[in-house]
């Protein structure tokens, strides 16, 4: 589904990604973790070309992301993305947030888009809020709407960029519940997150990044089960975030 081959990226002199190679197969849930500044958000954003990269190649269902001839809007419309800060459109109602891209990008009629949007809104448990504006919802609710908005486009894969790290603690679970359900339904997902409980429950693979490099890329069982076989950096990181 997604192939990342030897991707490197520089901000001027500073190299943020170094020869990153990995893949996400259909139906896999891949969790990307690592200390802040390790390049994990940057890596996930290269997948739908929100961040350009200078070297290497990324293929999404065989389509090269870095190729200047690629129709990026079309590619992006098939890749769902959920952001750390939700990024719902604040000037549009929840309903309009859910239907606008369906109508303008996919060319669906209003009724069809509305039908789809409201079904998904119901699924994330927020049907009663359809007429509200994003600013009237809590962070957790906004993030669930953002997930529904991405799903409304019938994506082939969902990218999550630290979806719970801007949330108050008591709202983290409502978002994770939606993500777990999605994973269990077989959605292909790439998630940058520190939620190791989530990783333990549904991840197929865990990628650990440090200083722009993929240090670990292994199955969930290997990652959590055989800590002694992990790199020093990964063990340190895990011991820090699993301590409490």
């Amino acid at each position, binding site marked *: 589904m997604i192939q990342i081959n030897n991707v490197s990226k520089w901000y001027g002199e500073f190299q943020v990604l170094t020869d990153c190679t990995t893949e996400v197969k259909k139906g896999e849930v891949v969790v990307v973790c690592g200390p802040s500044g390790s390049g994990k958000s940057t890596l996930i*954003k290269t997948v*739908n070309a*929100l961040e350009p990269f200078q070297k290497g190649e990324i293929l999404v269902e065989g389509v090269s992301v870095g190729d200047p001839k690629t129709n*990026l*809007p*079309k590619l*992006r*419309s*098939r*890749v*769902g*993305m959920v*952001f750390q*800060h939700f*990024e*719902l*459109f*604040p*000037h549009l109602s929840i309903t309009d947030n859910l239907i*606008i*891209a369906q109508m*303008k*990008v*996919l060319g669906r009629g209003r009724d069809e888009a509305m039908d789809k949007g409201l079904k998904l809104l119901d699924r994330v448990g927020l049907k009663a809020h359809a007429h509200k*504006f994003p*600013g*009237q919802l809590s962070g957790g609710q906004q993030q669930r709407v953002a997930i529904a*908005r*991405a799903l409304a*486009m019938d994506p082939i894969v969902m990218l999550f960029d630290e979806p719970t790290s801007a949330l108050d603690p008591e709202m983290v679970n409502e978002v994770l519940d939606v993500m777990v359900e999605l994973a269990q339904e077989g959605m292909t997902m790439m998630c940058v997150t520190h939620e190791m409980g989530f990783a333990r429950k549904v991840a197929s693979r865990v990628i650990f990044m440090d200083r722009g490099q993929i240090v670990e890329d292994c199955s969930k069982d290997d990652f959590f089960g055989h800590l002694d076989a992990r790199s020093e950096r990964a063990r340190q990181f895990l011991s820090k975030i699993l301590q409490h």
Partner: protein
Amino acid sequence: MNLDFSTLAGAQDFLWQGFKYSLTLTVSSMVFGIFFGTLLAMARMSSIKPLSLAAAGYVNLFRSVPLVLVIFWFYILVPLLTGVDVGAERSAFLTFAIFEAAYYCEIIRAGIQSIPRGQIAAGQAMGFSYGQNMRYVILPQAFRNVVPLLLTQTIVLFQDTSLVYVVGATDLLGAADKVAHRDNTLVEMYMLVALIYFSISFALSQAVKRLHARIAIVR
């Protein structure tokens, strides 16, 4: 000092014509200025260098020369270039639209720059093209953020339209000036137009203040 407003009744229609012209000029310059200003703002922020340089040059040029001078230029230049003498009133429509676009451009540019990067990324991630992202995500928010500034600029513009009297156009001030000289009522006429400009501008600026509080987007 004796004030004599007795000639006002006879001049009413003429003044009303002038006032209507001032309003029409203001509204048309605002509409065209905002439209062209939006395109200029997008051009200025474009990654295509020649385009952004040309737009920046345009904006800097018109923001650095006095409006009166531009009014003179167009009044003289337009007939010279086109061979058609369009008259002071009509040439002013072009002058103001072109001049004001530079000012509106900077306001709209500030509005666009006030939109968080994440919003732009979210629009892109949904599959919007550049144009769609501008139209559905960025510009609606940008405009909402700068509506008070746009209206304030329009109030300034309304006052500045009085400068067209230098090329003999019959706007509100021009009409009053002509009546004043005919009837020898300079003090009365200038007091009257001052009162009209003040009432309209002041009322509008109070309205803008109220609007400001109402339209802020809840984030």
